[in-house]
């Protein structure tokens, strides 16, 4: 019986990691990553994508990318893809692959969110800098809220994130980071405010075990983007659907499930702060 469970698990893991590479001619890839909560088991995303397909008449095929590099890679290989990425990868991919910004979700009615420093309520540390020599969990090395923001936060205190912790664990997404904290795998983690909110609403008991000790931001929210080859008509169509999504009941319901208030159109320059954060990280400190 144990073996059977294990084999099933291995198969699922294989499907999860390899699905993103599958090629289905005719379908437009809709690539999602750790920017959205997976606590619903992917159901909310599916409903969201189905809504877009229904409204746009475009067939989307959902691809789950285990990290932003894979997301970028898929969108690079299929430049007509639509994706929900993080602000930092977008800034980079926009520059490198001419990735296009479609729309920005509204969280708490603003296209902004924070990066939260979460730890166990048992820990006495008051801020991220206090966790020197401890284990830090992050969702992705390209994640704005998971890695860039805390790295900048520390750098502002003259601390190199890569040397500050005894171990940094790449969990793949923010929910995994929360799980790592809950199970003592990590001592501290930087969590996307949106994901933290979604997760704690679904599992309120989490707040008895973990708490926020520090936050940075606000930062531009994780955007809906498109590859460079998507037609302007299609891009515009999708953008309109998203912006108007809060106008219809179905859209409202989906937005509610997603924990969002709607979408708003923003220029690429909206993500300039993130570019600055990336730039600041690339700057060498006197100690370096």
């Amino acid at each position, binding site marked *: *019986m*144990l*073996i059977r*469970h*294990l*084999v099933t*698990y*291995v198969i699922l*893991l294989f499907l999860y990691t390899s699905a993103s590479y599958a090629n289905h001619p005719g379908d437009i890839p809709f690539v999602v990553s750790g920017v959205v909560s997976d606590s619903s088991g992917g159901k909310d995303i599916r409903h969201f994508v189905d809504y877009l397909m229904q409204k746009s008449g475009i067939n989307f095929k959902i691809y789950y990318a285990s990290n932003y590099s894979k997301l970028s890679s898929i969108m690079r290989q299929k430049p007509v893809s639509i994706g929900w990425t993080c602000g930092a990868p977008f800034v980079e991919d926009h520059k490198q692959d001419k990735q296009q910004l479609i729309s920005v979700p509204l969280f708490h009615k603003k296209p902004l969110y924070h990066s939260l420093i979460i730890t166990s309520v048992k820990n006495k540390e008051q801020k991220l800098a206090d966790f020197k020599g401890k*284990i830090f*969990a992050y969702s992705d090395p390209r994640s704005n809220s998971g890695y860039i923001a805390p790295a900048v936060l520390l750098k502002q205190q003259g601390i190199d994130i890569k040397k500050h912790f*005894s*171990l940094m*664990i*790449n*969990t*793949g997404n923010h929910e*995994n980071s929360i799980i*790592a904290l809950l*199970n*003592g*795998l990590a001592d501290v983690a930087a969590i996307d405010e949106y994901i933290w909110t979604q997760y704690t609403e679904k599992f309120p008991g989490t707040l008895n075990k973990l708490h926020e000790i520090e936050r940075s931001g606000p930062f531009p929210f994780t955007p809906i983007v498109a590859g460079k080859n998507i037609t302007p008509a299609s891009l515009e169509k999708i953008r309109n659907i998203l912006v108007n999504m809060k106008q219809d009941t179905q859209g409202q319901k989906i937005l509610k499930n997603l924990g969002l208030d709607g979408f708003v159109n923003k220029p690429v320059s909206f993500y300039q702060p993130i570019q600055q954060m990336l730039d600041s990280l690339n700057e060498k400190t006197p100690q370096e």
Partner: protein
Amino acid sequence: MIRKWLEKSFSRQVTAMLLLVGIVSNSTYAIFDFYQEHRHYKNFMEQQATQLSKTLGQTLANDMHYENYFALWSSIRKVYLDNQASNKDFDLIIINEIAVINKEGRVLAHTQAETHKPGSVYSNPLLNDISITDRPLEVLWMEQHNKLFVYSAINYNNSIVGYMIISYSTLPLKALRNRALTTYAISQIAILIFIILIAGYFARKISAPINDIINALPNMGSGNLDISSLDHRHDEFKTLEKALRHADKSIYETHNEIIDQQQKLSGILDNSDAIIFMKDTEGKYLLVNQRYEKIFRTDQQDVIGRTDFDLHPAIFAQEFLNHDRCAMAVKRPIHFEERIELDDGIHTYITVRFPIKDSSGHIYAIAGIATDITERKQIEKELIQYKTRLESIVETRTQELNESIQELEAFSYSVSHDLRTPLRSINGFSLALKEDYQDALDDTANNYLERIIRATDRMGDIIDDLLLLSRVNRHEIQTQAINLSLITEKVFQQLQNLDPDQKIEIDIESNIMIQGDPKLIYLAMENLLGNAWKYTAKAEQPKITFGQTSQNGHRVYFVKDNGTGFDMQYVDKLFKAFQRLHGSEYEGTGIGLATVHRIIHRHNGRIWAESEEGHGATFYFTLGE
């Protein structure tokens, strides 16, 4: 206490034996079965555990290589949680922990992440003594800690990237074992109850007939033993019943025979003139015959169980006791002359006392047969008196006789000596007459004179021999060591010198040593050899032999010749004085052998002769017998 309880009843012993056999056999089977089952479950558990390690290890290899801590942790945690959630299916496999460590022994992932943080050095007190090796798989049973560890080295691209340790709880195995033990205990109790019932039943089946036999046994030997309750049986008890009946009959018959024998023995004992008794080793009477009762005017019932000290004066009782002890000490019959005071005075008994032994040789009684020898003792006493008196008479008579002999010898010597003077005168004057007046006398007168001369010569010889014999009797013997061979040789040489014409072969055994008086022995040898010389004179090849031989342990010396010999019917006369077995053709006075006889006799010896007429003679003699 249990032993005493068991010893009181055969049925209890049978029950206990069956119970013991049942417990031992059932326990043996139960232990064997339990061991097999336990081993089976253990093997199953080990098989499952190793299979899981192999499969999981392959799954984790990639993440271990890239140190994907969270992925590793997720994988093992999922396996761990699945296992925890699937206890029904995994009732033997309960994972306690899964640890994934790198080659440096640092934790890559651990199901108990809080206590085993990634990057920390992995430690487990139970595994401190276990050296980590590159063996692909190792199973470590630690049942004392309720643990099973499966340790495996994880390979990625043919090189070891780390290790995985899965700890399992062996409590399910223990629970199974306890469950099995409980089952066995219950079954054991059930079987024991069953055995007790069966054993009890069979014990009763066995003990009932035994009790019948026990009840009947007091009548054993009566000749009508009744164990009719066993008649209907056809098993060993039937055989036993037959055997007992047969034994009963035999005992009955033997008993009657013994009584018959006892009566006969009593008849012998009671009609014996001797006193017969038997006592135990402490001196208490066990049996006395009627003679005892009569002699001591008592009754057997008053004697049995009492000692001699109760029945007789202490001086006698102590003597009897000493004699009894003596017979028991030497363990064989001993005769004692004992005295006892009876109404008519002291009586003397000759008593044979002998120990009575059982089949193992152990003395358990002392018996005695006492015969009254009072009269015989009186006769013996009188005989001794007679003998003393007779000896006194003989001594007196002997003394008188010796005195007579001495007087006779003195007379004989005196006569012989005194006769020699006139005889010498007769002989001398006869010779003078013949020499001076031979021619004046006629032939008849001369013949008369010659005959007077010869007669007086002969008479002189006789007188000399008689004087010699007389001297032999009176000679005081002085014993010393003598070489008899040399004496013989000397005598022979002397004879040869006197008669040089006579050629006689002599054979003398050399160095025959004796103890004797030299003068007398020389005289005896002179007579014996002279005799032989004389009677071999006419032999064709005369030969004299001197030697020694042995008869009945005594040394016997002999002088043998091949001369005339003599007729053995006259042998009794041979050593008597003046007794001659031959005529005038051989010279002699008839005193020589009498003298030899006297000399040998005075040396406490014997002399005798053997001969056949015409074939020589042999004279044998001994000395100092």
